[in-house]
């Protein structure tokens, strides 16, 4: 539980830097996953987007929500591609939701993730089960909500939700793509984990690391 102030803004910057480092370390793997059924640019696009997000976040001080809103715009502009539009808008929607919150507590974060996911679904018209990043995000958010209902802290709730996100990501290997480039492949898209599902898991894990450190 922290106030929605400039300290929160600095935390958002820390989170973005940490996420960038985590994704950079996995760039090639993300590219290879995308190449299995798509066009191989997912790793490069995510890194390009996150670098721009970090740069955009690094401007004037502000609350976490404003920082993230700026970061989302930077991401979308620099990354391009489906994930550029989706992940950038996701970050932006999370930011705009958080900017209006009273406090940065677990309920506000869950609401923000709700707003982010709604944005992805509005833009991309996919649903969970279509073998996309939503298959990481949706089970994560459900688990987070459940944890919130039991009164868990953000730290605890996040830790409880991550395994669900990972299971959701893993399940994409058995799915047939319904959206994105891989959708044209039908049965041939089966057998590989979805690249976007993997990158969202990396992001959520990296965010969790910072939250845990802050809580400790």
């Amino acid at each position, binding site marked *: 539980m922290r106030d929605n102030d400039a300290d929160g803004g600095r935390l958002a910057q820390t989170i973005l830097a940490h996420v960038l480092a985590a994704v950079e370390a996995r760039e090639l793997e993300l590219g290879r996953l995308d190449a299995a059924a798509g066009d191989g640019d997912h790793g490069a696009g995510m890194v390009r987007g996150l670098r721009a997000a970090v740069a955009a976040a690094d401007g004037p001080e502000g609350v976490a929500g404003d920082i993230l809103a700026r970061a989302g715009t930077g991401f979308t502009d620099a990354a391009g591609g*489906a994930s550029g539009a989706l992940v950038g808008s996701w970050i932006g929607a999370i930011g705009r939701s958080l900017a209006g919150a009273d406090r940065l507590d677990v309920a506000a974060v869950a609401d923000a993730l709700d707003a982010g996911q709604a944005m992805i679904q509005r833009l991309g018209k996919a649903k969970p089960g279509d073998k996309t990043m939503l298959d990481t995000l949706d089970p994560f958010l459900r688990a987070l909500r459940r944890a919130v209902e039991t009164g868990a802290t953000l730290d605890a709730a996040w830790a409880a939700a991550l395994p669900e996100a990972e299971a959701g990501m893993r399940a994409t290997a058995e799915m047939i793509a319904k959206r994105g480039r891989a959708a044209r492949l039908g049965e041939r898209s089966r057998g590989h984990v979805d690249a976007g599902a993997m990158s969202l898991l990396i992001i959520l894990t990296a965010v969790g690391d910072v939250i845990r450190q802050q809580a400790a």
Partner: protein
Amino acid sequence: MRRMLNEATAFREEMIGGYVAAFGRYVAPVPDASGVMAVGAPRAGKVAVVVGGGSGHYPAFYGLVGRGMATAGVIGEIFTSPSGEQAYRVAKAVDGGAGILFTFGNYGGDVMNFAMAEGRLLDEGGDVRTVLVTDDVLAAPPEEAEDRRGIAGGFYVFKAAGASAERGDDLATVEALTKRANARTRTIGVAFAGCTVPGQDEPLFTVEPDRMEIGLGIHGEPGVRTSELMPSREIAKLMVDSLVAEAPPDAGSRAAVLVNGLGGTKYEELFVLYDGIAPLLAAAGIEPYEPLIGEFVTSLDMAGCSLTLHWLDDDLRALHDAPAATPAFTRAG
């Protein structure tokens, strides 16, 4: 395949730099945006036709910018759609007050990013329409034809859009003719080997020896199915049969024909293929109109090719025949 470059991260910028340095007689860079525009754009009272997409497909999309074709092209990274912000800036730069027509291949990333640009332009009171290119017959069954992706047939769609705008048609007319051009265009493609992205060591996908991919993607995506490697004449038959079966209603008998090489399958082979195609078209009652054989939509150095039929009616024929002057395609008046 090794690619010639400096740093991979500078590739797009240097690519655009070299392109505009060489072709300044046709195009100029859009200031502060990842795109190029026809010399003389914006032109007051003319619809601006804005195409775009990832790079790695030259001359699609930015090689077809100039008089009589696209007014501007928004240029993404290799195989990556440009962002909505870039599409917005490019469209703003060429807006001549008569509206913007966006036209590009139907890929999720492009659709989402251009939609963002369109939304902003509409919010600002602009007049904007979008026509998606959906020519790949293997990308979805006929009932879902509007979900198909755009491949080499985009050439004819952009040509129609550009010619309509050039002669001063209003936005609704440009949009309607562009839609009609797309509705009367069908493509089928095959691939024999993958392509390598600049800065990477491994090809994006590989094709098993003695196999081929049918229904390739132009971003190195694998085809929708594989088959035994066929001799050229069987590929010709597969292609013609598939397209004839999908002829649009009221097709008529005259079709512009495009045999497109993806980059690694060379001209000599495309001619051998056309040697098989020509008699099959005749047998199907199709009169080939000014066939083109060459590289119009590439996928870096991917080995493969496609056949496009663009069934002409009188309106589309006039647009087809109109002059064009772009770095990659010239039609004398």
